[in-house]
């Protein structure tokens, strides 16, 4: 038996949480984000270029990647379309600020893997300070190498010491460099002014030696070997993982062609490492003309069996792991690797504001229809269930407050955009929520008919009805969860709204409805009253 106190507590909790959320949202002036169809947004046109023309499949793949990149949470519902053979049209919802839109679309260049030839600090190389190899990487710089690495193995760049060291070493060991780069790189940099940062000029730059800045510290420059085949499109998958020793790492899987080139490069780098070359044994991951990270090869001597990179062998099979400091860094790097693999170089040709496709009248029509529907439902339940209908009223109001707050909050925090389809979905969820009450009340009738007292019927009936609601909502809830995690695009936005509505439904059924009916059934006016009475509604003949 539930005590009246418990009922009161749950009821107050539900009301405070739902309306507190609503008050917070209203106070901060947050409103739900409207989708492209209802509020318009920003349109961006990107033009692709590639040697020998843009192939349609490659353009389509680029479209998919951009869509994924824009829609990280998958609920903003942008429109990304290939157009006219070499253009990509992007429309983002509600982004009034063009700069912001461009930021969201992000970098449009390719991802490449390049051998580090030299690390050049801002004020030019300082040829001294030869540290002992290994050791002190700064955070963000201690990513390490290839096939799994030991913390404290050969960490790398970004620290001042390393930078200094790099210059010296590159100078000294120039002659040991492999074929692709002409032997002068490092030495030249020491004698002359700091080199100009290479400008991006399409995919041709992949076969050239370049100088790029560090992504986090633009004053730090890297001289890098040509990338050759090691571009982003060889990456099949990249994931942030926790390795058995509890450190964060990123695993990379490459396709076959990529794996061969990767094995060759890593083998050479491992040889350089064995020769004591701390700088040149690193590989840099470059996105959008910036070095995201540079990492050395793990020494097999200090690594578990099969996890080091050996000279003359390299990393074979296409699977590698890069040790990364923190969870956030690992996830960011994985995202860069996963989505940075644009197969084409894009230039942005136009940015404009676009009007909504449907406009306010559709929104108003939808909202008005929703309001009328809701009013009809409310009228129906109060005629049919009397005082219990009032519980439905209060419950639906609580539901509306909760879902409005959540949608506003998610619009603000995660870019959730509400399209007309989403609004229609919410209108349907009103019906499904009402069903929770109907299941409960019909159950009450059954219990009362079987001869139980009002109070016992409420106790048992509401508990049993809650079980039914829980099972049924589990079905819709799991649909939402699975669709959200596995699907993309508009389906994902739908899944999020459905999932939220289902969750709120369960919570309200437990905390609000059960308590409210429990308390009402004890109040004489509500249970015995001639017109309003629950007994009347349930068909109890007294």
């Amino acid at each position, binding site marked *: 038996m539930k005590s009246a106190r418990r009922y009161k507590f749950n009821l107050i909790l539900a009301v405070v949480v739902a309306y507190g959320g609503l008050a917070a949202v209203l106070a901060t002036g947050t409103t739900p984000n409207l989708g492209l169809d209802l509020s*318009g947004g920003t*349109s961006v046109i990107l033009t692709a270029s590639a040697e020998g023309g843009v192939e349609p499949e490659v*353009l389509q793949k680029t*479209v998919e990647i951009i*869509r994924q990149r824009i829609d990280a949470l998958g609920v903003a519902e942008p*429109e*990304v*379309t*290939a*157009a006219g053979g070499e253009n990509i049209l992007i429309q983002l919802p509600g982004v009034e600020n063009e700069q912001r839109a461009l930021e969201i679309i992000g970098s449009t260049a390719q991802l490449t893997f390049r051998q580090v030839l030299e690390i050049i600090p801002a004020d030019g190389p300082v040829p001294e300070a030869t540290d002992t190899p290994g050791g002190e990487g700064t955070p963000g710089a201690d990513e390490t190498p290839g096939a799994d690495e030991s913390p404290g193995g050969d960490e790398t760049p970004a620290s001042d010491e390393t930078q200094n060291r790099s210059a010296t070493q590159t100078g000294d060991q120039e002659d040991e460099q492999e074929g692709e780069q002409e032997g002068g790189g490092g030495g030249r940099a020491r004698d002359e002014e700091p080199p100009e940062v290479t400008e991006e000029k399409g995919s041709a730059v992949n076969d050239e030696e370049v100088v790029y800045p560090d992504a986090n510290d633009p004053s730090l420059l890297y001289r890098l070997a040509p990338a050759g085949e090691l571009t982003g499109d060889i990456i099949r998958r990249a994931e942030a993982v926790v390795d058995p020793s509890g450190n964060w790492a990123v695993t990379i899987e490459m396709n076959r062609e990529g794996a061969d080139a990767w094995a060759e490069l890593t083998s050479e780098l491992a040889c350089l490492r064995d020769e004591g070359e701390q700088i040149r044994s690193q590989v840099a991951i470059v996105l959008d003309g910036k070095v995201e990270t540079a990492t050395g090869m793990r020494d097999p001597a200090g690594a578990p069996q099969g996890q080091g990179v050996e000279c003359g062998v390299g990393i074979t099979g296409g699977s590698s792991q890069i040790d990364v400091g923190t969870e956030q860094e690992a996830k960011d790097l994985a995202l860069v690797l996963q989505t940075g693999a644009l197969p084409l170089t894009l230039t942005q040709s*136009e*940015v*404009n*504001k*676009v*009007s*909504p*496709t*449907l*406009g*306010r009248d*559709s929104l108003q*029509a*939808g909202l008005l*229809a*929703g309001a009328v*529907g809701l009013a*009809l*439902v409310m009228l*129906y339940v109060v005629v*049919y269930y009397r005082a219990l209908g009032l519980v439905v009223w209060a419950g639906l109001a609580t539901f509306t407050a909760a879902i409005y707050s959540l949608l506003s909050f998610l619009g603000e925090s995660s870019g959730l955009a509400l399209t*007309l*389809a*989403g609004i*229609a*979905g919410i*209108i*349907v969820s*009103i*019906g*499904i929520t*009402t*069903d929770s009450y*109907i299941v409960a009340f*019909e159950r009450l*009738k059954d219990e009362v*008919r079987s*001869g139980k007292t009002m109070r016992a019927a409420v106790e048992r009936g509401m508990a049993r009805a809650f079980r*039914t609601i829980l099972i049924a909502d589990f*079905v*819709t809830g799991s*649909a939402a969860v*699975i*669709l959200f995690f*596995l*699907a*993309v*695009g*508009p*389906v994902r936005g739908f899944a999020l709204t459905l999932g939220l509505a289902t969750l709120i439904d369960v919570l309200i059924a437990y905390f609000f409805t059960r308590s409210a009916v429990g308390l009402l059934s004890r109040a004489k006016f509500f249970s015995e009253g001639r017109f309003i009475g629950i007994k009347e509604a349930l068909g109890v003949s007294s």
Partner: protein
Amino acid sequence: MRRLYRGETDIDFIGRRRLWFAISGALVLLCLVILLTRGLNYGIEFAGGVQTRAPIVDPALAEETDIEVIEEVRSALTPLGAGNAQIQIVTGDEGRAVLVQTKEIADPEAQQEVVNSVAAAVGAELDQTDSQRIGSKWGSEITAKAVRALIIFLLVILAFISWRFEWKMALAAIVALAHDLMITAGVYSLVGFEVTPSTIVALLTILGYSLYDTVVVFDKVEENTAAFAASGRKTYQDAANGAMNQVFMRSLNTSLTTILPVAALLFIGAGLLGAETLKDLALALLIGIMVGTYSSIFVATPVLSVWKESEPKYRAVRERVLRDTKRAEAAPAVSPSGGDGERAPASRPAATRPPARTRVGDKKAKRRKRR
């Protein structure tokens, strides 16, 4: 009516299953034929199309708001059958332009006609107008991922219902689901509405609703059959039928409260206020919800009960109950075999039951005997 209200109906849902199966079978078959012959009308989001862009030159339009311009362009396109085009106003450094996306028309002349109309509507010269083919916005990747998600979802649901109830219920629920989706898709094909991302969202809503409704009904069936059929007091069919009668009112109420807002969306939103997009969505939802409610009672449960009756355990129960009924027919006044007697077997003495119901029970028993 009063009996309906009190949930004391006595409809033989399962006994008349052949009728329901015939209706559903014919509908599904019809929808399948329509789908195969007419196909679905995929919208620009799936099929790609043509995008035309023309600067707004006409000085008369310069004063008008975006929405007014859109309406004018739309009315210029409607006679060409392109009234449902996606029309937007683009505002950039070079002033305003209209951006129209239509489905590609196979006939190049008709296609050019669309471009000409757009240009004419905003007073632009043809050489200022730019027209190019655009790919699908939905993309094969979105479809592939959605399908994969659906398959995994169905497997999870099969596993969940099998665990919570039993695997035969899980399969019966999926049968009902397929029935609902097929009929909705068939109606879409028949009416010739465009399939847009909103349609997919509507279909997913129906999928969720259909399973939800079936599970609510099965929860009751499970409870009743566990109480009566498993203990051998009633045939599985009768116990399930009793559950149907108890849950019937809830199903009616629920479909009514779910349909009311959707109908408002259809008739007020789309009908009176002319929000065309709402029309497609609301129609799909309306059909789906009605079919979803129908199938839980008239498809899912009869399928389940036919299947369960064939189990040796319930066949044995059935024979025993039939024997009892025959014996009881000699003394109808004390017969406990009514169609809904399970509702209050202990608290309601047989003698006080309304005679009408006893007669129904007798009729049913006779029908059973004849079979």
